[in-house]
Every structure is written in structure tokens, then in C-alpha cells.
């Protein structure tokens, strides 16, 4: 069975630009969560969506937004990129309690 997939794998942007990251959950999973992982730290929660509704939001600025589509895939958008947004962005899907992570998108902001 296919796991969580994310695209793109790597991305390089400059300050002030906008970025869209994409995630496809495991088949049958209706919940998708987004996390940011800075080097040397554990993942930090950004958003959770369930059945296209936002279920939770972490302590991130309004530059970060997300949505979930009818097929349960999701997008994370970040506007006005800052150098500090450079990180590994992880998507996780869940059916019950356990969350299963994708490979991540490595975002570098120059």
C-alpha cells in the first residue's frame, strides 16, 4: 500500500516569495496534519484538517495557511517567506490515533 506522499521533495525559494506544498494521505485516511521540523528539533504542529474542516492550528503566523480537498489531499501555503521558514515540512495522515508521516518537503529560503 502507498504511504503518505508529498511534493515537491526539495524546494529553493527567496525571501518574500510564496510556496505551496502538497500532500496525499494514505488511502482511507481522512485526517491530515502538517508539521515543521527545523534542524536538530522535533516536529512542531502547524495545522490539522479532518473532512475539509480545520481541527487545530499551532502557534504559527497568518502567513501559514492550509486546506484539504474532497479527495482528502491537502496543501500548505506559506506567504512572504522568511529565512527562518527554512525547514523540513512534514505531512501526516491518520485513521484513528496513530499518525503516519510522509517523507517531507525540504524548503530552503535564501
Amino acid at each position, binding site marked *: 500500500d502507498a504511504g*503518505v506522499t508529498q511534493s515537491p521533495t526539495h524546494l529553493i525559494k527567496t525571501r518574500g516569495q510564496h510556496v505551496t506544498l502538497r500532500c496525499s494521505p494514505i488511502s482511507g485516511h481522512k*485526517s491530515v*496534519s502538517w*508539521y515543521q521540523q527545523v534542524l*536538530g*528539533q*522535533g*516536529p*512542531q*504542529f502547524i495545522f*490539522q484538517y*479532518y473532512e475539509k474542516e480545520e*481541527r*487545530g492550528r*499551532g502557534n504559527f503566523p497568518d502567513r501559514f495557511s492550509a486546506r484539504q480537498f474532497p479527495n482528502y489531499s491537502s496543501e500548505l501555503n506559506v506567504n512572504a517567506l522568511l529565512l527562518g521558514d527554512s525547514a*523540513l515540512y*512534514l505531512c*501526516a495522515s*491518520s485513521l484513528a*490515533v*496513530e*499518525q*503516519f*508521516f*510522509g*517523507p*517531507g518537503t*525540504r524548503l530552503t529560503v535564501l
Partner: protein
Amino acid sequence: EDQVTQSPEALRLQEGESSSLNCSYTVSGLRGLFWYRQDPGKGPEFLFTLYSAGEEKEKERLKATLTKKESFLHITAPKPEDSATYLCAVQARNQGGSEKLVFGKGTKLTVNP
């Protein structure tokens, strides 16, 4: 505020040398405690879920245990392929439907042949 602290930050073992990783947590009503393994540049790989104090789970050379304040990941006779960062996370009850995980910083394990 929910919090997870992992120790040590880094651990070097010889192949076959057993040890334990610690995860201390404070949470307003534990729904679940999770262990993940993460290889460099990759997403975390799910290992275990523990729900209540006294619970234990095993998988190959790994065994996870839970008390009311901490969890241990015991590694028995490790092999070089067990080298990775091990992450601990908690999920609290009563988050208004949110399934947010709060992670520790991880323990980087290196097993030398």
C-alpha cells in the same frame, strides 16, 4: 502547556551494548504516547503507541514502556542499522477535536560495529 523532554540528546553504543532512552512528559490528560524513528532527511517512522501506565510494547530489539510521568525505549543488543534519531511525542485529550502531537527534540542514537 504540554511538554516532552528526551534524554540523552545523543547516545553512542557498541554493537550488542543494550541501553535505554528516556522521554519525560507533562500533559493535561494523556490520550497516547508515541515513539517514532527518524533517519536523516526523512519523515518519522511510526514505532509504538502507549496509552496507559504499565503498558509495554515490543518490536524486534525495541521495547517501549510507560509510567505516569515518563516512557522508556529499551534497545536490546543493538545493531548498526538501529542508528537513527528516536522521537517521542504525546497527544492530549480534550483538544477540541485536534490530534496535535507534541514532540521532544529526540535522541540521536549511533551504534558502532
